[in-house]
């Protein structure tokens, strides 16, 4: 069995729950993994040691990990990780790191894995319009999509060793830019409500924002909406040339369901579609379809969700 190494996912200065999913994936690929926690404060690594199915935890401590620098991070992590199969999450930063680590070791990288069967790995291609299964032999770096593998349970007590890392930053953050919106980004939200050109005008996105604020959702948009209205930023775009998302709930409002858009959201766990055109392709992918104008449906939805949240 191969040695496996999990690079812990860190968010807001703590171990992200996705890390326990990576541990499950690693156990499918080989022996119980070593979990490497890139951190400034080694105490955050303690919570990783409680994940079952790991052999040990390395708290890799350095000021380097305050901001992401691909070269610096890859150098520091490569220095402590033994050879084997490395597993990371599949968010943009982790995929970038995965590619760096693989290149550094002259081993291949397989991104966005959603299924593991022996040495065979399956990932979506064409933004999920098709799936590709590849065979691997030997060491590799593998990024794993979130919400696919069951999280390994808590209750473990692996040893934690603290290692001081060194590395040089090749880039420097000059300033963090103020976020235009305090709402969640579509890439990190568990619920997304998206509008299309059927919303009629960008001002009407305020109705989507109201619902988003009620249920803690992010607001997304179709390419048609982003291309038509300057007020709708590309950072909101869901689809093959925007962001690929797989939230628990995706609510599509005034979106017809172009292939381009479906590619970016079809793997959502539940899909609700609101569209006045009963023949819109989006309905073929919806768990719950509502044939109505958004003017009719959104106030009712808003009222019902508000009542539930109180």
């Amino acid at each position: 069995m191969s040695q496996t190494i999990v690079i812990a996912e860190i968010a807001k200065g703590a171990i992200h729950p996705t890390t326990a999913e990576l541990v499950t994936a690693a156990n499918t690929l080989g022996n119980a993994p070593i979990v490497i926690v890139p951190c400034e404060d080694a105490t955050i690594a303690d919570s990783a040691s409680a994940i079952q199915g790991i052999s040990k935890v390395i708290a890799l401590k350095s000021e380097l990990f305050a901001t992401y620098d691909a070269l610096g991070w890859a150098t520091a992590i490569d220095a402590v990780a033994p050879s084997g199969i490395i597993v990371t999450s599949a968010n943009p930063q982790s995929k970038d790191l995965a590619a760096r680590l693989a290149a550094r070791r002259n081993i291949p990288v397989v991104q966005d894995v959603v299924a593991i069967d022996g040495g065979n790995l399956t990932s979506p291609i064409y933004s999920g319009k098709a799936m590709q299964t590849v065979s691997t032999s030997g060491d590799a770096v593998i990024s794993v999509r979130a919400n696919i593998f069951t999280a390994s349970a808590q209750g473990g007590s692996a040893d934690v060793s603290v290692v001081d890392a060194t590395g040089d930053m090749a880039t420097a953050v000059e300033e963090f830019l103020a976020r235009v919106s305090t709402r969640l980004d579509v890439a990190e939200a568990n619920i997304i409500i998206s509008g299309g050109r059927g919303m009629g005008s960008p001002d009407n996105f305020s109705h989507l924002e109201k619902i988003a604020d009620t249920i803690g959702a992010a607001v997304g948009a179709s390419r048609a909406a982003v291309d038509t209205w300057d007020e709708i930023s590309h950072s909101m775009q869901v689809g093959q040339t925007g962001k690929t998302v797989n939230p628990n709930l995706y609510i599509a409002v005034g979106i017809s369901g172009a292939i381009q858009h479906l590619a970016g959201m079809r793997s959502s766990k539940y899909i609700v579609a609101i569209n006045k055109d009963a023949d819109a392709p989006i309905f073929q992918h919806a768990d719950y379809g509502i044939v109505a104008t958004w003017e009719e449906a959104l106030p009712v939805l808003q009222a019902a969700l508000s009542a539930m949240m109180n």
Partner: protein
Amino acid sequence: MANIVVLVKQVPDTNARIVISDNRVDLSSVKMVMSPYDEFAVETALQHREASGGEVTAITVGGAMADKVLKDAKAIGVDHIVRIDCDSFVDSNSLQSIISNAISEIGADVVYCGKAAADTGAGSTGPGIAERLGWASVSNIISATFADNVSVVAPAQGGNARISVTLPAVISCDKGNIKVRKPNVRGIMQAKKAQVDVKSVSAPASSINVISHSLPPSKPAGKTYEGGESAAEVAQLLRDEANVI
């Protein structure tokens, strides 16, 4: 004066329906285009040239059919077009080594590429070649300004940050605020006459092999309701049946 390289890839049009036959994607009747994010990379490369002087070389990897994307890049304004002749599947390790060899030969100061190709969506090539070259890299930038260093805006810690990048570096481009220029008639005429510099290479062996392609599992048919009032019932089902609210 900057020696600038931009990487471009030919992919199926993102509006195309993907068909599988014999466990393989069948692209025979699909329109092939430049991967959309590569258009932003070409634009950023041209803006860099305009700011600092120098030349832009577009590189692709593929068979003769892929010359089309190089001609498209030429029509928009790149100076040189290079195709690394390799038409079969190679893994990331093999692909990156042939591209980084070509970049070293050209002696580039900076390489631009799209944040991910629209076919694999992997986004491995940019950071991978940066590592092989020992260079800095920043991925998914949404804007760039050019002086001695390149200053970019890229996602960081849940928001965006302005990041200064010391060259040489590989920079991958998202759509962001980058507006791409269209080819003019003169550019299109020049592109028609332009010669593609074809480099033959022997790619290192791949340890990854494609076993099969398949369509994603289709979902069972959902429930459909008529009229806006039904939104209340759907909201209740999202809580009681789907457990997502």
